[in-house]
C-alpha cells in the first residue's frame, strides 16, 4: 500500500503524516461494526493520533513530578490518566504501579474488612431471631 510516510524533516519542511497509514488502518478495522474507511478519514485519524501523542507527552511532562524534570516517566503518564478527565479513557491501560508489599497489605486489610462485615451480619440475625 502506498503510504505517505513522512514527517517533519530536518529542514523543517512540513509533511502531512508520519505514522504509517497501513498500520492505522489495521487498528481501525479491528473495531467491530466498522465496514469501510474512506481515505480522508484514514489520513485524519493518523494525524489526530500524532496530535494526541504530542498532547499526552507534553501534558504529562508539565504536570509531572518535580523540578528534576529532565525526563518523562511512566508514573507521569499514569498520573495523567488518573487525574485528567480528558485522558481518563487511558486509566485501565496505564495503571498506577504500587509496591508488591503495599498491594499484599491492601489485600489483607480488605479481607479483614469483609470478615468483620460477615461477623456483624451473623450477630444481627441472632438479634432478629430473639
Amino acid at each position, binding site marked *: 500500500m502506498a503510504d505517505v510516510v513522512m514527517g517533519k524533516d530536518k529542514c523543517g519542511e512540513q509533511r502531512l503524516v508520519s505514522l504509517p497509514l497501513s498500520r*492505522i488502518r489495521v487498528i481501525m478495522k*479491528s473495531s467491530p461494526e466498522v465496514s469501510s474507511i474512506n481515505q480522508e478519514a484514514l*489520513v*485524519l485519524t493518523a*494525524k489526530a*493520533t500524532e496530535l494526541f*501523542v504530542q498532547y499526552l507527552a507534553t501534558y504529562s511532562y508539565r504536570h509531572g513530578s518535580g523540578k528534576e524534570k*529532565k525526563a*518523562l516517566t511512566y508514573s507521569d503518564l499514569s498520573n495523567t490518566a488518573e487525574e485528567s478527565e480528558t485522558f481518563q479513557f487511558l486509566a485501565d491501560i496505564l495503571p498506577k504501579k504500587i509496591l508488591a508489599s503495599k498491594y499484599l497489605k491492601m489485600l489483607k486489610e480488605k479481607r479483614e474488612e469483609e470478615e468483620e462485615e460477615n461477623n456483624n451480619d451473623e450477630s444481627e440475625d441472632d438479634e432478629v431471631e430473639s
Partner: protein
Amino acid sequence: MAERPEDLNLPNAVITRIIKEALPDGVNISKEARSAISRAASVFVLYATSCANNFAMKGKRKTLNASDVLSAMEEMEFQRFVTPLKEALEAYRREQKGKKEASEQKKKDKDKKTDSEEQDKSRDEDNDEDEERLEEEEHNEEEEVDN
C-alpha cells in the same frame, strides 16, 4: 481477520520522534514511558474509530468519512485538534488535486512523446548507418597504413 498483536502497535521509531519533537530539548523519555504512550495511541485510534463510526451510523452511512472523524474529536473532548485537522484535510485535498492534475499532464505528455519517439526512431536508424560507414572507412585507412 486474525491480527497479530504487533500489528496493533505503532512503530516505535515514529512514536519516539513525535514525542521528542513535542518535548523541550534534552528531556529523556524512559522506555516504559515510550511504550505506554504507544499503547495509549493505539487505544486512542480504537476509541476515535468507534466514536466516528457512531456518527457514520447516525448518518446511515457504512463508510467512515472525514467529518465523522472531526465530530468524534469534539465528542471525545479533543476540540483542540479540530482546527489543525481541518488544515491538514485541506492540505491533503490540495495535494490529491495536484497529484491528479500531474498524472493527467503526464499522460498527455506521454501521448505526445510516443508520437515524437516514432520520428526519433527513424532518425536514429539513419545515424547508425552513418556510424557503420565511418567505422569501415577508418578500418580501411589502417590497412593502408600497414601496407
